C-alpha cells in the first residue's frame, strides 16, 4: 500500500497534523507547516515528472499509479487511488496554494496551532479527493474538506463571520446531500450484475451499466451537488459572504482549491460516468452557468468590499469552468481545467494580497483607500499583475484558459451554443471594467487617508507567497502548451465516444 506514491499525499498531511499537535510555540508550528507543504509541493512535482515519464514510455491507461485496497469489502468500498493529467495538475495547484497559504498566515492569531490543524485537515481532504477514484472515499474526503471551513471562518474570520460560516457550511452540506444520494444511486446501477456492484470510477465507466432513465435522475443530482461548491448560479451565494469573512489563507485555499473540487467532481463524476445524460441535459446547466458568468461579473462591478469583488469574480470565472465542461468537447474541457488552474492561482494571489492590505489598512472598503501604489508599491504592483491575469492579459494564465474555452465552445455551430459563447466572451470586457475600477480606486490616484502614509510594504514571507504565485501564473501563461497537453490526454481518450466527442 505504501509503495504507491499517491498515498503520501494523504500521509504527509496526517503526519503534519501529528506534528502540529506536538508543537509548543509559533516557530515550531511555522516550521511544521512550511516543511510539510514544501514536501507536498516537491512530491507533486515529482509526481508530475514521473507521470509524464510514464506517458512518454507509452502507458496509455486511463489512470496511472492506480491502486485499490479493500476497505469495506461487503459494500465493495475500496481505498482506490489513481491519477491522470487533470488530477496531477490539481495536486500541484493544491500544494502550491497550501504552501503560499501557510506563508500568508505567518502571523495568524489567536490560536495559531488550532488554525493550522484545521487548515491541514482541510487540505488532507483536498488531496485525498484528488487522488481517489473510489466514489465513497472521494465523497468522504470531500466532506472532510468542507467542515473545517466552519471553524476556520467562525473563529479566525472577520465581519459577519457567524452568519457567513453557518451559511457556507449548510449550503455546501445541502449540496453534498444531493451528492450522497446521487452517488449511492450510481453505486446501485454501477454494474449489470448485482454481485459486482462497485464504487470505482473506472470500472463504472467501463461497465456503462447506468440506464439512460437513471442517468436523467442521477446526473442532475451529482452535477448540482458538486455545482454548489463550484458556485453555480443560483447556488453561489455562500461564496461572497464566506470569502468575505474568511481569514486570508482560508479564502486562498477555499477559492483556490476547494471551489475546484466542484468543477473537478462535475467532470469526474457527473459527466464522466453519465455522458448520455450530460449530453442531453447540458443545455439546462449551460444556461445556468452562462448566466453566472456575466451575472457574477456584473455584480462585481458595484461592490465596494475588495473581497466581495473578488468573490463575485470567482463566481464568474468558476461559472466559466462549468460552462466549458458542459461544452463536452476536448478543447473546451481542456480550457476548463486550465481555467481551474489559472483561476485557482490568481484568485489565491488576489486573496493573499487583499489579506495583506487589510492587515495594514484594516479596511476592505475601496472607497476608504486610495493611492496605495505610493505607500506599498510591491503589494500594489502584485495586485495589478493579479488583475491583469484575471482580465486575461496574454502572457498570464487567464488569457490562455479563456481563449481555449472560447475556441472550444465555438466548435458548436448551432445558434444556442453560439449565443451563449458570445455572452460568455462579453465577460472579458466586464472583467476589465471591475478590475480597473478597483485598481484605479485602490492603488492609483491620490492617497485617501493620511494614516495610511506610515504603513509599510510587504514582509519577506508575504513576498515569498506572492512571488511564488505570480511565477506560477506567468508559467502557465507563457508555456500553455505544456499544461494543455498534460490535460488534453484525458479528454482525447475514448470514454466520450458515446457522445461523439472529438
Amino acid at each position, binding site marked *: 500500500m505504501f509503495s504507491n506514491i499517491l498515498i503520501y499525499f494523504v500521509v504527509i498531511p496526517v503526519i503534519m497534523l501529528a506534528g502540529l499537535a506536538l508543537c509548543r510555540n509559533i516557530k515550531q508550528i511555522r516550521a511544521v507547516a512550511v516543511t510539510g507543504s514544501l514536501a507536498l509541493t516537491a512530491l507533486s512535482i515529482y509526481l508530475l515528472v514521473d507521470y509524464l515519464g510514464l506517458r512518454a514510455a507509452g502507458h496509455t491507461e486511463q489512470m496511472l499509479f492506480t491502486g485499490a485496497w479493500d476497505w469495506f469489502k461487503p459494500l465493495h468500498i475500496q481505498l482506490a487511488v489513481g491519477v491522470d493529467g487533470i488530477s496531477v495538475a490539481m495536486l500541484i495547484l493544491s500544494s502550491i496554494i497550501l504552501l503560499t497559504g501557510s506563508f500568508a498566515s505567518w502571523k495568524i492569531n489567536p490560536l495559531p496551532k488550532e488554525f493550522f490543524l484545521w487548515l491541514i485537515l482541510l487540505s488532507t481532504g483536498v488531496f485525498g479527493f484528488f487522488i481517489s477514484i473510489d466514489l465513497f472515499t472521494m465523497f468522504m474526503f470531500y466532506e472532510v474538506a468542507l467542515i473545517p471551513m466552519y471553524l476556520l471562518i467562525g473563529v479566525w474570520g472577520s465581519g459577519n463571520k457567524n452568519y457567513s460560516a453557518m*451559511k457556507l457550511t*449548510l*449550503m455546501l452540506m445541502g449540496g453534498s446531500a444531493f451528492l450522497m444520494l446521487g452517488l449511492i444511486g450510481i453505486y446501485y446501477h454501477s454494474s449489470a450484475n448485482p454481485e459486482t456492484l462497485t464504487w470505482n470510477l473506472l470500472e463504472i465507466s467501463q461497465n456503462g451499466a447506468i440506464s439512460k432513465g437513471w442517468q436523467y435522475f442521477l446526473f442532475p443530482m451529482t452535477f448540482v451537488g458538486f455545482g454548489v461548491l463550484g458556485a453555480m448560479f*443560483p447556488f*453561489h*451565494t*455562500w461564496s*461572497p459572504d464566506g470569502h468575505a469573512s474568511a481569514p486570508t489563507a482560508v479564502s486562498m485555499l477555499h477559492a483556490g482549491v476547494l471551489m475546484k473540487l466542484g468543477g473537478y467532481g462535475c467532470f469526474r463524476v457527473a459527466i464522466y460516468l453519465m455522458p448520455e445524460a450530460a449530453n442531453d441535459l447540458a443545455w439546462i446547466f449551460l444556461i445556468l452557468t452562462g448566466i453566472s458568468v456575466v*451575472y457574477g461579473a*456584473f*455584480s462585481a*462591478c*458595484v*461592490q465596494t468590499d475588495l473581497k466581495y469583488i473578488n468573490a463575485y469574480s470567482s463566481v464568474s470565472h468558476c461559472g466559466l469552468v462549468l460552462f466549458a465542461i458542459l461544452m463536452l468537447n*476536448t*478543447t473546451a474541457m481542456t480550457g476548463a481545467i486550465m481555467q481551474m488552474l489559472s483561476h485557482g492561482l490568481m484568485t489565491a494571489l488576489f486573496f493573499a494580497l487583499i489579506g495583506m492590505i487589510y492587515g495594514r489598512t484594516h479596511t476592505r472598503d475601496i472607497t476608504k483607500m486610495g*493611492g496605495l*501604489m*505610493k505607500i506599498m508599491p510591491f503589494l500594489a504592483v502584485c495586485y495589478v499583475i493579479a488583475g*491583469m491575469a484575471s*482580465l*486575461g*492579459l*496574454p*502572457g498570464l494564465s487567464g*488569457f*490562455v484558459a479563456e*481563449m*481555449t474555452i*472560447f*475556441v*472550444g465552445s*465555438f*466548435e458548436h*455551430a448551432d445558434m444556442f451554443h453560439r449565443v451563449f*459563447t*458570445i455572452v460568455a*466572451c*462579453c465577460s*472579458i*470586457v466586464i472583467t*476589465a*471594467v471591475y478590475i*480597473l*475600477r478597483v485598481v*484605479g480606486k485602490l*492603488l*492609483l*490616484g*491620490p492617497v485617501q487617508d493620511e494614516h495610511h502614509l506610515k504603513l509599510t510594504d510587504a514582509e519577506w514571507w508575504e513576498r515569498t507567497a506572492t512571488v511564488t504565485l505570480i511565477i506560477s501564473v506567468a508559467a502557465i501563461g507563457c508555456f*500553455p*502548451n505544456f499544461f*494543455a*497537453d498534460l490535460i488534453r490526454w484525458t479528454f482525447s481518450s475514448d470514454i466520450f465516444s458515446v457522445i461523439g466527442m*472529438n
Partner: protein
Amino acid sequence: MEATIPVLILAIPLFMFLFLGLLGKFMSHKMAGILGTAGMGVTLLLAYFTAYVYFFSGTPEFVDAAGNRLQFVVFNVDWLQFYENLVIRLGFLLDPISAMMLVVITTISFMVHLYSNGYMRDHHGVYEHGFQRIYAFLALFSFSMLGLVVATNIFQMYIFWELVGASSYLLIGFYYVKPSAVSASKKAFIVTRFADLGFLIGILILSYYTGTFSFTDLTSVNVATDTFAVNLGTADHIKNIFANSAVPVFMGGSVLTWALVLIFMGGMGKSAMLPLHIWLPDAMEGPTPVSALIHAATMVVAGVYLVARLFPLYLMETTALEIITVVGAVTALYAAMVACTQLDIKRVLAFSTISQIAFMMVSLGVARPEFHEGLGYMASMFHLFTHAMFKALLFLCAGAIIHAVGSNDYTSMHGLRKHMPVTHITFLIGCLAIAGIIPFSGFFSKDEILSSCLGHGWVPYVWMSFVAGLTAFYMFRLYFLIFWWKEHKVPQGHHQPHDQAWPMTVPLVILAAITCVAGFIPFGKLVSWDGVSYDFMAHFDWSVASVSLLVAVVAILIAMKMYMKENPLPEKMRNALPALWTWCYHRFYWDELYMFITHKIIFNGICRPIAWFDRHIIDGTMDGFAYVTNKASYAIRGLQSGKIQMYVWVYLIGVLLLGLVTAICLL
C-alpha cells in the same frame, strides 16, 4: 535568412523591460535612461538591417524572379494547440508592410527614448519620479508593437494587440497620482477592450470556418495575379467555404462579412475610429513622448495595419470595405472639424491624428485592384509611414513647447518663434507636411490617397479633399497661435522659454529631415497589396495633385489671415455659427453620450439591479429557508405542552390514524 536577428529584435526590448522593471530601482536614473536608449538603439540597427535585407538583398526567399515581393516566415513556434489544425504560433513574418513597420516603430521608438532623457526632467535637470519605470514601459510597448507587426497568424496578432493595449494603459496612467490620468487610462483600456471583443469574436468565426489562424493561409487569395508564395489549397478552400450555401447568413450579412466587420471593429478601437474614438483625446494625459510614440505614430495605426494584413480577405467581401470607407470618411471629417476648435495643443494633435488615420482607412477602403493596381493600399501604407514621422515630430515639438511653457493651453503660448527657433522651424515643417505642401512627405502620400478616392468615385474624392483643406487650416491655426498671434509675455515666476537640451532637439531635427525627404521614397516599388512592385509616379495624377495643393494653400492663407496677427476675426467667426462651434468644441458630446450609456444605463441600470437581485432575491431565498424552518419550529412548540394528557391524546390520534389510514388503503 536565419532567425537570430529577428529573435533579437523581439528579445532585446523584452529583456530591457524585465531588466529595467525589476532592477530599475537599484540603478541611477541616468543609467536607466542610457541603458534603455542603448537597448532601443541596438534594436533599431537590427530592424534597419532586417528591412534592408528584405527589400534590397534580392535573395530569392524575399523576391521572386519577376521582382515581386514574397512573404517569408522566419520562424514559427507552436505556443498553444487547440486541435490539429488550429494552433497559436509565435513567429516572425517578413513581408513589405511588416518590414516597413519595423522601420517605423524602431525609428520613432528610438527617438522617443532619446527624447525622454531630456523631457522627463525639470529645468534643473532633476529626473521625474518613476523615470526608470517609463523606460521599462516604453521597452514593453516596443516589444509588443514589434510582435504585433511581425505576427504570422491572427491570434498572435491578437495576443500582442492586447499587450500593446496594456502597455498603453500603463503609459497613459504614468502620472498615476493624477485622477484625470487614471480615468483616462481606464477609459482607453476599456474602450479598446470592448473593440477587442469584436476582434476576438471575428477571429473565432473566421478560424471556425477556415480552420486556420495563419495569415499566409488566410490571405492566399488569387484575385488578380497571385504572387504570394502560399498554398492555393487553402485559398480555394476558403473561397469554397464562404461560397458554400451551408454557411449561415446572419442578419443579411454573410458569415465572412460579419467576421471581417467584427475584426475591423477591433481596428476601430485601436485606431480610434468613430464611435470608438473617445479614448484617444483623453490619452493625452500621458507624457508627451508617449503620446508621440503610441498615440500618434505606432499603436493607433495598428487598426490600419490589421486591415492591410487581411486586405485580400476584405477584397473577397467588398461590403466590409464599403463600411470601412464610410466609417473612415465620417471620422476624418468629424475629427478635423473638432480639431479646428480645440485649445489644448495636444488635443488638436490628437484629433488630427484621428483624422489622418481615417485617411488611411479610407484609402484602404477605396483600394481596388482594378484601379491603379490597388494604389489605395500602397497609399495608405505610405501615408502611415510619413504620418508616423511628421506626427511624431509635431508631438515632440509640442512636448518641447509644453516643457518650456509648462502648460498645454496655447492661450498661454503665442509668439514663441523668437524664443524657440529650432522648435519653430521643425514644427513648421511638420505642419507643411501634414497640410500636404510639396515637397514634404505628406503631400505625396495624401495625394495618392486622394487619387485612389477619385478612382472610387467623386463623392469620396471631394469629401476627403475638403477634409484635407480643414487639416491644413487647423494645423496652421495651431501653428500661428503658438508661434505668432502676439508677443509672448512670460507669466510671473516663470523663466524665459527656450529651446531644449540636445536630447530633445536632436530627435526633432532628425524627424524633420526625414519628413522633408520621405516623400521621394519610391514606395510603390517596395509596398503593394500583392507584392507586385510598380512605380507609382506612373499613377501620379497632376490634376488631383494641383487641386489638393490649391486647397491646402487656400486653407493656410485663411488660417494666416485669421491667426497670424491678433485680431477679432476668430471671435466673429465663432459668433457667426455659434451652434456649430459649440458642438465642435464639445466634440459633438460623444463623451457625454458614453457617460450616459456606461453610467446611467449599464452601471445603474444593469449592475446595481443585478447586485440587488443577488442580495435580496437569491440570497433572500436561501435565508428564507432558514427563516421558515425557525418559524416552523416555533409554530409547533405547542405540541410539547408538558401535559401528560395532551401527550396521550397525540399518541392515540397517532395510533388510530396509522391504523385506520392503512386499513382504508387496504380495503
